[in-house]
């Protein structure tokens, strides 16, 4: 039996730039100027050729994807991440056969369903019902299949009432819900998904994620391309990081996502706003620096789950006489807010501050945060007047790591360990020997 679902062998995709894309004429004027340009370029090229230059060297080529190889086994859920232009979408377009690779080969074993966009082919003049059929057909579903699942699709979208209303009266959120419902009910062996969760309200997003998780649990193979780290972390065990068309890292999601967030996104454990113009500020107070430190006062991007962590805010008070409430928030990769904390140092608590530079440090105890990436947001409020002077949502970030074998909540368990916090609790255990009766 073949356990492979997808086999990608050294694929590359080259695009010509300056020729293909620019041929999109929309108006007659563009059209005419385009013709003139092309003619001019043509003449110019001939001139250059006479100078002994070859024609092909005039055209710029870029490799959107270069020499990528990997394998995905049946039932695996693999995430693909990377900065813009890393080749994620091109890779997915090759796998979905929308575009051909320039080199290399791909073998896909099983029925492929692709979801590069929700609501592909939706037409605003048609009713919800009609669009379900049209969209289903475009996604490769058979009419009998859509008939069979129609009720389920509509009830999943929660739009029973409007299903016979033309789509143009739907809000964009409603359209997305209906579209996702159709897509969620495809039954392919291999599902290729791109960024589709970026839209819709939070509750529905969660519902979709659950549905996709279900898909993964049913033993279906899923390739999921996204910028949305929380869903990558949540759905995928394995993640491939792309950069400049090549595979940078291929491994367990936690590691790969952590690497990406630090190196590619540039969120770092320390940040300084050198230029006061760009610093988060009001006329009263301005944030100048932000740092994550360990108990030795060293700036760290990774801390052991058992250690305490310092969050250090440096800020400048420009107008005296205000009672300030500096603080920070922590949220994790799944965008779950863990907590917020305000400064409670008795020296400055409820006291007006003079002009000057302050550094406030809040300590997060060890054995409290769960492992993963933590994003730290910095803010300063006043209550009189009630005002949020600034809030820098992802001012800094750090990784919490937990290795089995030490004294942390997971003790010796190496696998998945649930929860957004991971406190080490005090436990009491009483032993009753076989003769004794428990109370």
């Amino acid at each position, binding site marked *: 039996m*073949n*356990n*492979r679902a997808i*086999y990608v*062998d050294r694929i590359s995709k080259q*695009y010509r730039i300056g020729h*293909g*894309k620019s*041929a*999109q*004429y929309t108006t*007659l004027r563009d*059209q005419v100027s*385009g*013709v003139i340009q092309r003619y001019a370029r043509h003449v110019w090229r001939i001139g250059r050729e006479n100078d002994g230059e070859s024609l092909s060297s005039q055209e710029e080529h870029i490799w959107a994807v270069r020499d990528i190889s990997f*394998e*995905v*086994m*049946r*039932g*695996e*859920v693999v995430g693909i991440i990377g900065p813009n232009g890393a080749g994620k979408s091109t890779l997915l*377009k*090759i*796998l*979905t*056969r*929308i*575009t*051909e*690779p*320039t*080199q*290399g*080969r*791909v*073998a*896909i*074993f*099983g*029925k*492929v369903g*692709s979801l*590069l*966009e929700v609501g*592909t*082919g939706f*037409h605003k*003049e*048609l009713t919800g019902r*009609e669009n379900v*059929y*049209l969209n289903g*057909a*475009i*996604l*490769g579903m*058979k009419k009998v299949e859509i008939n069979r699942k129609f009720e389920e699709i509509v009830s999943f979208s929660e739009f029973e009432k409007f299903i016979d209303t033309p789509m143009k009266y739907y809000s964009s959120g409603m359209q997305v819900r209906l579209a996702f419902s159709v897509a969620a009910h495809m039954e392919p062996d291999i599902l290729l998904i791109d960024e589709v969760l970026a839209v819709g309200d939070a509750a529905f997003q969660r519902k979709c994620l659950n549905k996709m998780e279900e898909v993964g649990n049913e033993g279906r193979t899923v390739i999921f391309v996204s910028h949305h780290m929380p869903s990558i972390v949540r759905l995928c*065990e*394995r993640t491939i990081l792309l950069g400049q068309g090549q595979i940078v890292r291929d491994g367990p999601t936690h590691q790969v996502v952590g690497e990406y967030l630090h190196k590619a996104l540039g969120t770092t454990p320390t940040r300084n706003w050198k230029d006061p113009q760009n610093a988060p500020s009001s006329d009263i107070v301005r944030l100048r620096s932000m740092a994550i430190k360990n108990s030795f006062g060293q700036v760290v991007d990774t801390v052991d789950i058992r250690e305490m962590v310092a969050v250090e805010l440096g800020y400048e008070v420009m107008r005296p006489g205000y009672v300030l409430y500096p603080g920070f928030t922590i949220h994790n990769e799944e965008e779950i807010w863990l907590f917020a904390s305000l400064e409670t140092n008795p020296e400055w608590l409820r006291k007006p501050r003079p002009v000057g530079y302050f550094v406030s440090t809040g300590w997060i105890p060890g054995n409290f945060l769960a492992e993963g990436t933590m994003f730290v947001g910095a803010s300063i409020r006043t209550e009189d007047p009630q005002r949020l002077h600034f809030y820098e949502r992802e001012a800094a970030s750090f990784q919490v790591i937990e290795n089995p074998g030490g004294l942390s909540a997971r003790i010796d368990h190496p696998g998945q360990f649930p929860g957004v916090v991971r406190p080490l609790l005090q436990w009491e255990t009483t032993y009753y020997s076989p003769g004794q009766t428990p109370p």
Partner: protein
Amino acid sequence: MKRATETTEEIPIDSLTVVQMGGVYIEPSVGWTSLRLRELWKYRELLYFLTWRDVKVRYKQTALGAAWAIIQPFLTMVVFSFFFGRLAGMDSEGIPYPIFNYAALLPWTYFSQSLTTASNSLVGSAHLITKVYFPRLVIPVSGVLSGLVDFIIAFFVLIGMMLFYHIKPGWGVLMLPLFLLLALVTALGVGLWLSALNVQYRDVRYVIPFLTQVWLFATPVVYSSSLLEQPWLTLYGLNPMVGVVEGFRWALLSTDPPKGMIFISLLVSMAILFSGAYYFRRIERGFADVI
């Protein structure tokens, strides 16, 4: 979850083995490729839905709706009858000019609209082409098929006119679907060429109205082909729409049957269709990158 490191029984990865296992094998295609008609057949439901969508949407936001399918050829007929029939006194082989003209306008309108729809269809479906895979041939084919509904609506006017002028069709009317098919094949053939070219060169969009206009006068719609003499007649045979229009007039109005040159028309339209389909397939692989 299984890891890639788990042992896998090695199977040869080549196009034949993969396809036999029900999988998909992707590699760069080179040169002329097959039409993959079997795959097209697999997507027939999509063809149906796209055609159905075109038909449903076409007149949805118009005040007069499907009446346009009648108004357009009918008003054209009225105008032509006035200028060519009344003022110019064009010979219409002994048949009242309005119906002589309308019997030709009917297939002509279908042809020119299908040709235009098909030619613009790919560019108009850029949204689909860049987001989902299916045989791209489905798009222009559905463009040509959706026009048939308008044809059928406009046909009722013809029936009314035949009753009005007391014209009974002969047995030739049974051949009518064949002439319609010839118009369809020609429109599709030219549509395939132009739609594929249109993806790369948007100039095509501006050529289409001009092309249909010239083609209209190269086809005996407003006049009778009996006006022409050799050697023009032979050259005329190269235009498949001549056969279609003469066929329609013969089938409905019992004029002279189309001559032997209808076979040339047939060959020409098949040649356009096949060359168009192959050209389309050859260009198809780059659509998503260029569109």
